[in-house]
């Protein structure tokens, strides 16, 4: 599927990523003890972000690649394989977003910077494994938001 994020066009196998996530969603979310907090949706829903979509998408894919997936190793081989599948897909998309950024097609302004700061604060407010598992469990929030772009 081709995503139009402002001037940036990115092709992404959304169906494959969703299939991989759906296969492990229940398992991952069962490892998240704190149901009252959110990484992506606190204090405001990601869906409130209407502008600078490319920048926030680039920030979030970098966030998942750099900070989240590596702290989600489990004892379950099937889950680990699906996480690897998602992580490698995110790496592939993040590279394309990076190219848009280099070509100045991925402008970052105040709104996206503020939103990403909030997400990082939410993440760093928890211990790393809990935060990583919670973030992974919220992946469909990001995917839904992208699908609505």
């Amino acid at each position, binding site marked *: *599927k081709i995503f139009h994020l402002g001037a940036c066009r990115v*092709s992404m*196998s959304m169906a*494959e990523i969703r299939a*991989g996530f759906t296969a492990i969603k229940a398992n991952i979310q069962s490892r998240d003890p704190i149901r009252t907090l959110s990484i992506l949706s606190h204090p405001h829903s990601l869906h409130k972000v209407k502008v600078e979509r490319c920048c926030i998408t680039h920030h979030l894919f970098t966030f998942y*690649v*750099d900070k989240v*997936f*590596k702290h989600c190793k489990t004892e379950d*081989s*099937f889950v*680990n*394989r699906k996480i*690897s*599948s998602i*992580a*490698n*897909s*995110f*790496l*592939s998309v993040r590279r394309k977003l990076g190219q848009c950024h280099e070509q100045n097609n991925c402008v970052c302004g105040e709104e996206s910077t503020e939103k990403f700061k909030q997400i990082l604060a939410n993440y760093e407010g928890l211990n790393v494994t809990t935060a990583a598992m919670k973030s992974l469990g919220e992946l469909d929030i990001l995917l839904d938001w992208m699908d609505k772009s």
Partner: protein
Amino acid sequence: GDALLPAPQSISILSTNMKHFLTWSPVIIQGATVRYSVEFQGEYEREYANGSWIPISECSLTTATVCNITEDISATVAYKLRVRAELGATRSRWATMKGFFNRVTTSLTPPVLRVLADGYHLLVQLADMGPALQFRVLYWKKGQESRMQQKVVREVSSLVHLDTMEAGAEYCVKAQTHVEAINRSSSFSPTQCVRAQGDASMWL
């Protein structure tokens, strides 16, 4: 106890139509059944997870010398694959496939199709080639190649209606396989032509 058992050789990947298989030559130990285990490593694991390897459980302690790695090669990045032999408690060293494998290099074959004329209706039936593949079907009235039309078929479940034909006219069809995830297509299938029922002179 690892050094006594030789490592598998001739490791290679057969990849056709987005189905990927790792194969290797057997390790022969007289009177014994040697088993094998396979692991993979994506670009993410190399760059962000300390070069870690992930076992493929379906190919752990298998006696086969082939492993279906399709489910795990599910991103368009460079993967490394390795396999080792095991006999009881003895294990060979890991044998790692030379180079990388990226699914963008899969070989794509043209679809198998059957073209039918059902009265005035031009129909095509396509063989299912797996979820990752879709088909681009081109069809035209013979002699009017310039007015070629196209239909993209994603779900291969039954007959696909292409067009309503003029009586007695001949229509031709060809198709190619397309994979969105890697943005590549196969060559076209041979062209097949059928004739609609009725008398062409009706249209003069």
